[in-house]
Each structure stands twice: as C-alpha cells, then as structure tokens.
C-alpha cells in the first residue's frame, strides 16, 4: 500500500465573504481570521501543499473584511487595503508567499478563467460543480493544462448507507453515487480527486475510513481525503484501512498548536511515506 510519492498533508483555507472561516457540515460558519494572515502563518510551516477554496456566494471578488488587521505583517506579506479585488489579483498575491504547490478553487467555470488563475501563480485548479454540470470541462482543462493541474473536488454525504454526491457548496443533492462519479472523473482526465465528507466536516471525530477506502479502491489516480481530522491520531488511523495520497484538513491547523509538524512526526513514526 505504499506509493513511491510522498503522502501529502494539506491544509485547506476556506474563504467566505471577506474572512477565513471554519465550517461545520457545510452549514455553520465561524470567522477565524482575515484572508491573508493565515497564508502568512502557513508560509513558515514548510507545507507540502496548500488548497485555498472560495465558498462565498459571490465568487468573483475578494476583500479583507477583518477590520482588526493592520496593513502589513512582519512576515513581509502585504495585506490589501479594504478594497475589492478580482480572483486573479488575489491568486497573484497568495502565490507570492507560496513556495510549494498552490491549488485554488471556487467558481472556476471556464478555460479562460482557469488559465488566468494558473498564470497568476496557482499550480492546480480545483473544480467541483462546474465539472459535475459539464463533464467535458474536466477533459478540456486536462488537455489544455495537463491532468496534474486539475483537482476534481467531490462533496458527499451518506444517505441510507450510500455515499451521494452533492454540488453547489453541498446544497444540492445530485442522486449520483460517489463511486460512479469517482470513476467518471478519472476517465474524464482529472489528475487527482479531493473527497470531502459533508457529515464529518468540522466535527473533528476522525476521517470517514469507509469513504476513503471506497474512493481509493475505485480509482488509480491520487485521492486526497478531507473532513473530520480533529486529532493527531485521526491522521494515522486512516492508514489502517487504506492509503490515500493526501490528507487534507482545515480547523486543526488553525486551532491546534504545532499540529502540522506533530502530525508529520506521527505519520513518520507509523512508517507512512511523508516528506
């Protein structure tokens, strides 16, 4: 069950209407900071990768709504004045402090938009609803930018013992089973798949092991699993059943001191091939 590539530990930052937020089951949102200071903090942590997701209803513009923040930090990352900027300028600023792969998602609907996001310093785009609605979008993106630049994100929820795919920030049930969509996504040319459990999101009681196993067994492309990683042992537990290529989480990295390095240490102890 060992990949020759390193298993990645990936913090996710969720941006919603001017703030970084903590989410719980895709429903409740709590503000945790301004859109840039978290990136500045993470840039010192020697991350494997960073995923930045915009879950606002209006995904076209960014602003810093956190009035308490000053205009600059000691880390050298410049904060923006409190004015609206577009997604491309936003990614451009983000990338200035990212010397590791940066993935951006949220409202990426067109090839043109994907191209500009990648050109502004992102290494991968994350697509979800647009990919589900128009399957060719995955193929078109993969042909144009290479499959390694395309992460298809899938949000799912357990309904009567089946994992069902949800879209539109987890609001719309599609009726499609996860396994079917995972197989399709691979055929359509995605480079990797980010699986989010809506049930486990923000609960902190551990990843959904069955969900992970099911996803890993039904595709040969990398699976990154997200949702539920609240304690260090959750990150090692998951490998008892299957071997995802990446583990993603949001809250634990914001609220638990030294969590990133400590999880890495624990994974190493358990002989998981990490960086």
């Amino acid at each position, binding site marked *: 069950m060992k990949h*020759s*590539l*390193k298993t*990645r530990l990936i913090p996710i930052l969720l941006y919603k209407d001017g703030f970084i937020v903590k989410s719980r089951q895709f429903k409740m949102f709590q503000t945790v900071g301004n859109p840039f200071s978290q990136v500045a903090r993470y840039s010192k942590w*020697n*991350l*494997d990768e960073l995923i930045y997701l915009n879950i606002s209803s209006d995904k076209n513009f960014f602003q810093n709504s956190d009035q308490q923040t000053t205009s600059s930090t000691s880390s*050298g990352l410049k904060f923006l004045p409190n004015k609206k900027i577009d997604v491309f300028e936003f990614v*451009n600023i983000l*990338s*200035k*402090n*990212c*010397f*590791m*792969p940066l993935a951006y998602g949220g409202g990426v609907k067109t090839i043109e938009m994907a191209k500009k996001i*990648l*050109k*502004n*310093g992102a*290494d991968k785009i994350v697509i979800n609803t647009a990919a589900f609605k128009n399957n060719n979008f995955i193929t078109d993106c993969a042909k144009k930018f*290479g*499959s*390694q630049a395309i992460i298809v994100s899938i949000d799912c929820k357990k309904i009567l013992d089946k994992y069902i795919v949800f879209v539109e920030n987890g609001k719309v049930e599609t009726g499609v089973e996860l396994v079917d969509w995972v197989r399709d996504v691979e055929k359509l040319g995605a*480079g990797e798949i980010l699986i989010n459990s809506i049930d486990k999101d923000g609960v902190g009681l551990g990843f959904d092991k069955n969900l992970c196993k099911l996803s890993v067994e039904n595709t*040969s*492309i*990398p699976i990154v699993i997200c949702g539920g990683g609240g304690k260090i042992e959750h990150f090692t537990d998951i490998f008892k059943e299957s071997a995802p*290529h990446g583990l993603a989480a949001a809250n634990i990295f914001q609220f638990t001191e030294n969590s990133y390095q400590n999880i890495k240490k624990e994974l190493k102890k358990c002989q998981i091939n990490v*960086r």
Partner: protein
Amino acid sequence: MKKIIGLIDYSYGNTQSICNALNSLKIDFTLCSSAKELDLCSHIILPGVGSFTATMESLDQLGFLPSLNYNVLNKKKFFLGICVGFQVIFSEGREFGVSKGLGWVKGNCRKISKINDKNLILPHNGWNEIQNYDNSKLFYKTKKNDSNFYFNHSYIVTGVKKEENIICCHTEYGEKFVSAIQYENIFGVQFHPEKSQENGLNFLKNFSKLK
C-alpha cells in the same frame, strides 16, 4: 558585469512562481522576453512547463536560440534549465516524434517507463527524494534526512554518459532517472526548485551565488 539573472520569459513555463521565489530571496533578476536582453545578464534561467517540442519551437520563433548558444557556450554564463528547460539542453526529445534540442549535452528525453509498475501514475507529480547529491555545490545545505523536491513531469532524460561525470543526482519513480546535472557552466534540474520550499529556495540561492 553586474550580477543579474536573466529569466527567460516565453509563453511556456511558470515564470510567475520563479519570480516569486527570486523576489523572496532578494535576488536581482530581469525578465527577458527578447534574445538581446540575455547579453546583459550574468546568469540565465530557462523555466519550462509543457512539451519539449513546444518549448523548442517557442525559443526558436522568439529568436532565443543563437543568443542562448552564444551566451552559454561562448561566454560561459551560468545557465539553469528547470524541468522542460532542463530537458531541452540535451540532443533530442521523443515526445511527439523526434525533435531536436539545444544539444549542449549528449542525451535524449523520453517518457517514464511503466514496465516495472503498470499502475504507475503519470505525470510524476509530487514530492520525491534526490539521491547522492553530495558532490554538487548547488545542493549545499540540502539536508541528509530531507532531500525532497517537488516534481511535475512525465518525461525523463536518458542516455547521459556516466563516465562524463555530469550527473549530480538521481531520483526513483518507476525507474531510476537523472534528476540534476552539471556540465561546466550548465546546470539542469528535473524538479521545480521554485516550488520545493526551503530545499528549493536554497538551491536557487546557491545558483545565484555562482561566479
């Protein structure tokens, strides 16, 4: 000549990420979108994401080839090729048919073999280790217990003669391949130093300090 890096800016490559890395290291550089700008630089970096053929065609169309040859082969300026920018310094590429490379170093470029592992995922995308890198000064400060760099490619360089002593290190993915070379003033790496955190930033810093 003032020490300044010329970063070749053409339609291929993730130029923005390299600019970000150089900026954070406070290394002087200039984006070169035309060949004559290379004459004013002491070091040259050729980035690359994309295909061997497209990279060579683009360099040719923008008129970079004579200037690259002059500055690197005649003037012996320090040159660093990254990813496809590394692959094109060899004789030829076999990506879509055979295409000619810059030919500064003997060798060619072909797809990673799946013979040893049918389920091998391509491209090789992610963190991997470099092995036996001790002899190259560009890897000065690369830690023994963490020699990870970020890779993103499907093609590798083969046919490099061991006896010429230009191989700096190897990496394993499906097979063992050359992940960095140094031939006189010419350096090339298969990984992306600009996306390899501290290891990568140290590497770029070491390159910029060459004189």
